[in-house]
């Protein structure tokens, strides 16, 4: 059952939320030992929440648009009283005293949180192999990765542990695992969804978004979590018209661009490239016009991203010093405690990015690295703006490849970084983008086609996504 169907059934009293939750907890119990999508399953809490929803329905109240729908939450989002680790030893056992705005909104809409999902440590990675608590496996082929960093959320939805999940996307961390697990994944416009309670990786890029099995379900969850939050200064001061009503609007008359720099490049597998072309053809058949477009600066986006994101991360992750929460390795004096705590608590990829970022911000290097990267970012925004004068939305691959085997890229960080080459440009621009399953590649593994839209272009983006979903059958 989709989330939309579950919510309708629970709201009308046809199914009990308790029954829905038990069914999903049973699926988790049966299979998550092998997949490791969850770091924590909050079964008792979920049962209590479901019972409360059933009681509300019995009283004639409406629990909200997510009534009784199980939702998995990426472990980068704070949940009061429930361990939140971001896949890191340094936060092992930390229970936040507050809940992220997005999670509060899900609970307020009748959603039932079933657990916290695994991820690359502090969302740094593209395979979920960087989790300090062990990798997550791809439900479609457990010898392969689910992508990352929100691999646990993607796997949870793909394995039907929950019809909906929240992830966070900094350079592709929702879209890429969605593609690799054959689910829908949405990175909303920067500022459309509150970041309050999302443990920061790179503040100017991070955005929370939904995973779902259908485009309609993704829209349902996005409409619940989007909207202004006074606790997040970068949250756009607008209530945002819901996207769900747009889904049936079709694509007739829309102008779609195929981004050359993200499609016809080395490393993009042929079936992936073909899938994007077929997606374009499908939209044309549905009444859209399709043309090839160029974002010349896109080729520099990856390099800029790997300066900006680590720079912000080096500062955001400074607070894990052993003084107030999480891991503490005792030492003779504060500076040594600090250093030893961080040495023991952070994994190699996190340390690598902290060093990269510290270097990029250092006196004498700032102009050459951080400032230059910000200039590239401006160029990327300008190039997109030029293209969006002619196009309503763009198409590109989400990931250059289908899901790869565990361990295939762990030895070579740069190769792993290239997993996000297609998703990073719109992240730098702060635009909306989503991945929709479209076709299959090597070994019958799913391919994700990425739909890109300008800032606050979600309504059009979802129309295109719905059309692709329909065409993919």
């Amino acid at each position, binding site marked *: 059952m989709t989330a939309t169907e579950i919510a309708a059934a629970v709201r009308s009293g046809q199914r009990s939320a308790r029954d829905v939750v038990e069914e999903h907890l049973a699926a988790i119990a049966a299979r998550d030992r092998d997949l490791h999508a969850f770091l924590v399953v909050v079964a008792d809490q979920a049962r209590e929440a479901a019972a409360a929803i059933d009681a509300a329905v019995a009283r004639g109240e409406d629990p909200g648009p997510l009534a009784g729908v199980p939702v998995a939450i990426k472990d980068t*989002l*704070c949940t009061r009283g429930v361990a*939140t680790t*971001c896949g890191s030893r340094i*936060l092992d056992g*930390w229970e*936040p*005293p*507050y809940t*992220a705005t997005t999670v509060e909104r899900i609970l307020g809409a009748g959603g039932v949180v079933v657990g916290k999902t695994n991820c690359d440590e502090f969302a740094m990675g593209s395979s979920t192999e960087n989790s300090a608590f062990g990798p997550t496996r791809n439900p479609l082929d457990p010898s392969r990765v689910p992508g990352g960093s929100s691999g646990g959320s993607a796997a949870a939805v793909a394995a039907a542990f929950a019809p909906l999940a929240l992830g966070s996307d900094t350079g592709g961390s929702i879209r890429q695992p969605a593609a690799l697990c054959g689910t829908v994944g949405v990175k909303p416009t920067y500022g459309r969804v509150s*970041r*309050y*309670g*999302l*443990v*920061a990786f*790179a*503040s*100017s890029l991070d955005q929370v978004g939904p995973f779902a099995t259908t485009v309609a379900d993704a829209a349902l969850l996005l409409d619940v979590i989007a909207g202004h939050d*006074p*606790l*997040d*200064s*970068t949250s756009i001061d607008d209530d945002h018209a819901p996207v769900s009503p747009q889904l049936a609007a079709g694509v007739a008359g829309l102008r779609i661009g195929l981004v050359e720099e993200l499609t016809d490049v080395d490393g993009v597998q042929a079936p992936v490239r073909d899938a994007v072309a077929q997606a374009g053809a499908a939209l044309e058949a549905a009444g859209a016009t399709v043309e090839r477009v160029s974002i010349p600066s896109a080729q520099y986006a990856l390099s800029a991203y790997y300066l900006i994101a680590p*720079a*912000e991360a*080096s*500062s955001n992750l*400074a*607070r894990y*010093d052993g*003084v*107030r*929460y999480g891991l503490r390795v005792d030492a003779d004096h*504060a*500076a040594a405690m*600090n250093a030893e705590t961080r040495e023991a608590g952070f994994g190699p990829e996190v340390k690598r990015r902290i060093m990269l970022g*510290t270097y990029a*911000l*250092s*006196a004498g290097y*700032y102009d050459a690295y*951080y400032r230059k990267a910000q200039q590239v970012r401006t160029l990327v925004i300008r190039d997109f703006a030029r293209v969006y004068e002619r196009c309503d939305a763009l198409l590109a691959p989400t990931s250059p490849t289908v899901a790869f085997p565990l361990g295939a890229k762990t030895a070579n960080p740069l190769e792993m970084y290239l997993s996000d080459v297609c998703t990073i440009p719109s992240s730098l621009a702060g635009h909306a983008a989503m991945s929709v399953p479209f076709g299959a590649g090597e070994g019958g593994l799913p391919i994700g086609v990425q739909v890109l839209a300008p800032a606050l272009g979600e309504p059009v983006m979802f129309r295109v996504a719905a059309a692709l979903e329909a065409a993919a059958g």
Partner: protein
Amino acid sequence: MPVQDYQAVIGLEVHTELNTATKLFCGCVNEFGAEPNTNVCPVCLGLPGSLPVLNAAAVDAALRLAEALGFRVPAQSLFARKNYFYPDMPKDFQISQYEEPILSDGSLDVDGTPVGIERAHLEEDTGKTVHVGGGGRIHEADHSLVDYNRAGVPLMEIVSRPDLRSSEQARTYVAELRAVLRAIGVSDVKMEEGSLRVDANVSVRPVGSEAFGTKVEVKNMNSLRSVGRAIDFEIERQVGQLDSGERVVQETRHWDEADGSTHSMRVKEGSSDYRFFPEPDLVPVAPSDEQRARVRASMPELPAARRARMVGEWGVADADAQILLNVEGLADYAEAAVAVLHGGTPRDVAHWCTGAVQAFLRETGTTPAVLALAPDGLAELVDLVADGTLSRSQAQDVLGECLREPKRPRQVIAERGLAQLSDEGELASVVDRVLAENPDVVTQYRDGDAAERKKKRGFLMGQAIAATSRQGNPKVLGDLLDQRLST
């Protein structure tokens, strides 16, 4: 070369805690002296996932300072992160302003000389570390505790240009700036509580030289007096070094109030690279025209104008006007008393305020706002002196009692039977009796020169006042005495 052949060049960095109701980036109460770690929340504790939201009242405070000191307010200013590790800093970075501060290019008049102020910016305060055991010293402490109540309290850092040339000027600058900050209502400016902290950049150069000498930053001055002492010490130390052929080392030095000298602080390796970058969690600050207009309309009279009015309209000496303005609330107290005078003069009000009232405030550490004697009580006292009911020395006693106990001057007079004796007939008989009892003195007065006469008259006045148990009106007694001695 002797000290006078050198010129000191001084710039001051003043950090003032703003008295906004809540902290700079969260809703926690901004107060001094609460139980440790009670005014904290996820934001000011820097918990993972928390985000800052700028307090508009802090921007208002900056805009008020802009009006007062003629700062330029850029259309947009930015917050930046200053990155360094310290246990009392929750995020291990401080949100401050770097490349584009909220205010730039202001100036403050110091005894007729305009002193340039390069910039003023907003930033958050840190927590406070307490070292337990080992006499509270960091290296011998058993462990340390951190109180985060102060973390996130808004600070304004006001950076002067190197326009000051003496410790005296530096002190006046700080006093004047404090008076302005107090007048515009943005800070409590209490150096002892740390709500106003001053760092001084001091260098010396030969008189006539245009080039600056090597500057030394002096920290840890916690009173106006120690600002002056520390700067004087530093000037002499630097001149001494130059005279003995040494070079002044660019460094930060710590003022030690107890031994009256500055000490080099350990130079921390790499501590100067704060890796500033724009704070991505905040949007640029862009005060609207309405906001600026609202602030402008609510500006109070500034200290310089108020002082000029007190000197011009009240006839108060400039030094006394300074005192009224530099003691928190005293000028307001005096103004309130002046407003309800019947016969007394503002000048008299100022006299008592800068004298007995100020002494009492200093002694007890209180403020005029909480004095037992309300301003109209002081006005009553001044009027009673003016109409001759009390002598000045009686008034001094009455005032003393009214400051210590919640009594009105008339009540004290009634209790003590203090009213001044002014009845001319009664006093005339006192004078006549004193003259009759001291015929020799009267003769010496009549035969003496001016100096001798003054002395003898003084003696006779003293006798007369003593004869009235000090209640006789000195003016009436004096007139009667002069009348009789001249015939």
